[in-house]
């Protein structure tokens, strides 16, 4: 296969990985919560998009903002009602809580949607440059993923709520002295994490089939991307996502797709040892 094709596949996959990981990274970095629900949030976003498209025929790109907002609401409510009660507890406590919530959400999804793989088919055709092929739905997915990533970056850097989120992350007592209601910012942050997951799921459903069987896979990817790129920053998630996408693509071609995932995890372990802050070790949420 052409080397450009391998790189292109890696970049497309990497942009999607970045989008998957970014909300997970935000929640982990700001709340110090390892959100076990993240994979299910992604699949829920994918299913909602698929079924809304299937029954109404509305174009999925138009559905995406609504799916994302629905997930924001779900995330906000879960944080507000449950996770805020234990948010200052050690990380194992919140991990257990989100694990329990995830089992509930996962089972509900399996009951309501079944685990049948679903995919929005757009039939947009394929671009070709010589020997290199790029299905247009994938190009679209990559573009959407990058746009969302850029949007989150701008929000974090330039908005009032972005500043408040960073302030809470860095020093919650000092943030309280600024008049910031810390628990409310936690709920909004968790909501944004779910929103990004939902949007990523909507994008995924346009490119690959989604099924509840994938929740663990997505959670694992988010985890690896965070460790590779460095926790708690948009550029970190982007770099980590692209790195993982490229590695899996190259490894998939050279040593076989069944080994590609192992290579990703090996890279994560290697980085944990030599550079625990990730490729982009950051101070603030930038």
């Amino acid at each position, binding site marked *: 296969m052409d080397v450009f094709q391998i790189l292109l596949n890696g970049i497309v996959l990497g942009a999607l990985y970045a989008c998957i990981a970014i909300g997970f990274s935000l929640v982990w970095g700001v709340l110090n919560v390892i959100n076990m629900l993240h994979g299910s949030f992604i699949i829920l976003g994918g299913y909602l998009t698929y079924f809304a498209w299937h029954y109404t025929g509305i174009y999925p790109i138009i559905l995406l903002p609504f799916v994302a907002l629905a997930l924001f609401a779900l995330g906000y409510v879960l944080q507000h009602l449950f996770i805020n009660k234990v948010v200052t507890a050690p990380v194992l406590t919140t991990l257990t809580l989100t694990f329990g919530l995830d089992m509930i959400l996962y089972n509900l999804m399996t009951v309501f949607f079944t685990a049948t793989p679903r995919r929005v088919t757009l039939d947009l055709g394929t671009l070709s440059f010589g020997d290199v092929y790029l299905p247009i739905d994938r190009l679209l997915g990559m573009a959407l993923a990058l746009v969302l990533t850029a949007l989150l970056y701008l929000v974090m850097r330039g908005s*009032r709520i972005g*500043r*408040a989120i*960073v*302030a809470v992350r*860095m*020093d919650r*007592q*000092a*943030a*309280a*002295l*600024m*008049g*910031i*209601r810390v628990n409310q910012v936690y709920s909004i942050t968790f909501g944004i994490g779910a929103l990004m997951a939902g949007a990523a799921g909507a994008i995924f459903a346009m490119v690959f089939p989604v099924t509840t069987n994938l929740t663990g896979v997505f959670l694992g990817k988010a985890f690896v991307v965070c460790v590779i790129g460095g926790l708690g920053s948009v550029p970190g998630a982007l770099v980590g996502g692209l790195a993982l996408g490229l590695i899996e693509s190259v490894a998939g071609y050279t040593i076989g797709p069944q080994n590609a995932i192992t290579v990703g995890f090996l890279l994560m372990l290697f980085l944990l040892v030599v550079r625990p802050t990730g490729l982009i070790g*950051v*101070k*603030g*949420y*930038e």
Partner: protein
Amino acid sequence: MAKPILEIDGLQAGYGDVQVLWDIGLSVNEGEIACVVGSNGAGKTTLLRTISGLIEPKAGSIVFDGEEIAGARPDEVLTRGIAHVPEGRRLFKGLTVEDNLLLGAYLRRDKSAVRDDMDFVLDLFPILKERRLQDATTMSGGEQQMCAIGRGIMSRPRLLVIDELSLGLAPRLVERLSEALIEINGTGLTILLVEQDVMTAFDVASRAFVIETGRVSMSGETSVLGEDPRVREAYMGI
């Protein structure tokens, strides 16, 4: 007659089962600079934390501008008009000087007035203008203290409480900051200063309260207390 803007009476507070404040009573008059002094662990920081709502008092009252604020949330206290510059500056890492200042104005919606106050702060401490886009926590201690005070002013408070103005700073810088406080006070802002360095505190403040193990042991005009042999011996090393 001087009118009190802050009146504290019978205040008790602490951390969990550890009681730190046993019986605090003090008042700050509108327009003055008052100070609270005391040795390490006397409870000065705990007092300020209780005023700004970070700690719930066990008993007693805190009346600000005629309203009871004991037990109110930090954002409610700030809205009423008390800004708290915490011990050790506590600027936000990873954010610029400008962003730190803007966080001081987090609850305000009057954008143009916020701009004016930003200009006021940058004129008061011109070095911050040069450092506007630098990570605030990479500045020197003195510059960080300026930024922390500026951040407090950005909420346009009626009372500014400052914990340990001089902590870890060279005497020349402390003098510079003291002058700035007097200038800020000249705009009509009431200031309550907490200090371990009694000399500095008595230089800028007109009235003082001495705290010992969670109780106010002495209080009065700084000009009088500064001559008191007990104060001179215990806190000024004379």
